[in-house]
């Protein structure tokens, strides 16, 4: 099977290791991965901040970049949700925008629904807690997929995150426009994560982890944020970091 990787702008610029891990994971599962270089950003930051018009060229670019691919895999629930839920509304300006929506799969959807695997042959002998980011949780309805994948990882001890379904406080430009409320939400999320005694706070959206990881780093907390793809890419032969 051949798929296009939509790595997302945040991962491209700040978290390339998540992209590398996604490639390594998919290739290990026998998937041929392409990276259309014309891709940049899905347009969500502009759209969600009220600048719909400014998002149009990015929607157009994204639609064109992934033309001809039956499956587009995105290691971000938020960007996948932007395409699935909002691209249809750009139909007038960008022909084909609605057509991209059903071809886009968030990584865990692709693994569980399209490839039909939950045990991806990973090994990650650490205590991990999982934060289900809001867009993956509520807009995509990822449900138990990430948990099932994590539970199948050899050596991984999955611990329940209290208040898991509460927003971490990132929210794109919300984090900058409402820094105090955002930080208070993040502090509560981190408090809950630390209480689990986990070594790793796992998520499937690096934008949330950018916020939470930044807070963990500032506090010098004994917990690191890591994208799900990097845990799933890790094997006994080639452990991740």
């Amino acid at each position, binding site marked *: 099977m051949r798929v296009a990787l939509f*790595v997302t702008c945040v991962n491209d610029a700040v978290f390339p290791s998540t992209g590398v891990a996604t490639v390594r994971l998919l290739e290990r599962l026998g998937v041929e991965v392409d990276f259309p270089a014309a891709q*940049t950003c899905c347009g969500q930051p502009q759209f969600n901040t009220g600048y719909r018009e400014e998002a149009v060229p990015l929607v157009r670019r994204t639609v064109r970049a992934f033309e001809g691919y039956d499956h587009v895999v995105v290691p971000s629930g938020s960007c996948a949700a932007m395409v699935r839920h909002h691209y249809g509304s750009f139909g007038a300006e960008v022909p084909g925008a609605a057509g991209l929506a059903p071809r886009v799969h968030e990584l865990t959807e692709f693994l569980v629904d399209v490839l039909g695997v939950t045990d991806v042959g990973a090994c990650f002998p650490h205590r991990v807690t999982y934060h289900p980011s809001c867009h993956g949780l509520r807009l995509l309805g990822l449900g138990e997929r990430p948990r099932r994948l994590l539970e199948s990882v050899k050596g991984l001890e999955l611990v329940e995150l209290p208040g898991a379904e509460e927003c971490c406080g990132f929210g794109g430009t919300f984090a900058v426009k409402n820094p105090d409320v955002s930080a208070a939400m993040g502090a509560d999320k981190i408090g809950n994560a630390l209480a689990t005694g986990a070594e790793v706070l796992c998520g499937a959206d690096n934008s949330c982890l950018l916020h939470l990881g930044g807070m963990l780093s500032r506090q010098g907390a004994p917990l690191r944020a890591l994208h799900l793809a990097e845990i799933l890419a890790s094997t006994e032969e080639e452990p991740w970091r």
Partner: protein
Amino acid sequence: MSGDERTTPPGPGPAFVGMPAFPEAARKAVGDATLRANLRHATHTIRDKRARAVAELDDWAALREAGKRIKDETLRHLDTYLLRLEEAVTAAGGTVHWAADAAEANRIVTELVKATGESEVVKVKSMATQEIGLNEHLEAEGIAAYETDLAELIVQLGRDRPSHILVPAIHRNRGEIRDIFREEMGSWGRPAPEGLADSPAELAEAARLHLREKFLRAKVGISGANFMVAETGTLVVVESEGNGRMCLTLPETLISVVGIEKVVPTWRDLEVFLQTLPRSSTAERMNPYTSMWTGTTDDDGPRSFHLVLLDNGRTTALADEVGRQALRCIRCSACLNVCPVYERAGGHAYGSVYPGPIGAILIPQLRGTASGVDASLPYASSLCGACYEVCPVAIDIPEVLVHLRGKVAGQGGHRPERAAVKASAWVLDHPGVLAAGERLASRTRALHPRRAPGPGIRRWTESRDLPEMPAEPFRDWWRKNRT
């Protein structure tokens, strides 16, 4: 009575005039440990109870969809249903008044009260009268308006503002309430019993005793309504305490101020909302008191009934294809109780009587976005979607927030932001430029501080480190390793 000639406790000043923008007001709330603890405890308790009450029904999704459809159908033909309602109320012996805005509604109510010759009224908990600032208006006209809902009484005696639609005194704990009762009750009626403690039973009994003399004396009652049935002209109030029933049945004159969006076509429609409203708001299967009245009835209840239909910005919202769904709201407050932003910012930060997610989409439509606080409301959300998930009439609050952000962003004050967004979008639409920027960031990464100046970055780094930049962007790794 008090020395300042007033008949009711003074409010905290003109309604929300000069409120700071949401982020600034929220900053104070976030730093208030008592408030945070009160809100956290209360919202989590109601939130969990609601989830259990809703989970009991296997047809919840169908009820939610039915509620949405009934409201949408009614709003689509609002003119028809309102005229039908007017006809039915009039035929049943009531009088209907139309108020375009708060000033007109206040004037109508004042004239109606003055015509009775009375100088005091008892009030049923009502969001519409809060919205128009009726109490303060009546006070200025020499008429005492006494709130009789327990929480509204706490707010009124505390010279405070409501901070929640359903639980207006949610920001107060038992100790604070006891102190308010001890200090204030005596100035405006029967004092609190000697040695009042802070147990819920004692506090409720103190309120009962204080209010009873007002109920028995009052000749005029003022209410809102949860629903108005067009086919029969029936108004409906759902409540828990029974104070509403007292106000609706004891006085000789009843005046109801109701937003025009509260109409439903038929009694059958109530079947849906009388299930979804109590479970969503108080997490009860059925609320303790459901009062329904149709005009006036000989020898029973008020001799005279007036219905004031309030627009006050609702028709403006109705004209907005995306925003109009906010008018489906049945004021259950489920969105407040589940909102992580409300939980931390509290209700007062929203600068209106409608706080939380629903307030953030309702107020900018009812009042416009000219003031700082109103323009900041559409951004008072992380778009986490928890509000939409619990809304019993399926208002897609995140969708409306984004829509309203678009409107605010079109205002003059957002020119620098728009320029920045345009510039960033241009870079993102030119992968060569983007890649050059990414490479530059990677190559200079050793020089990057974890805290940084600049408006956006500074706010980010107040509580978070900036991430360490990678050695190379993903696209460069791909080019080197896979092509």
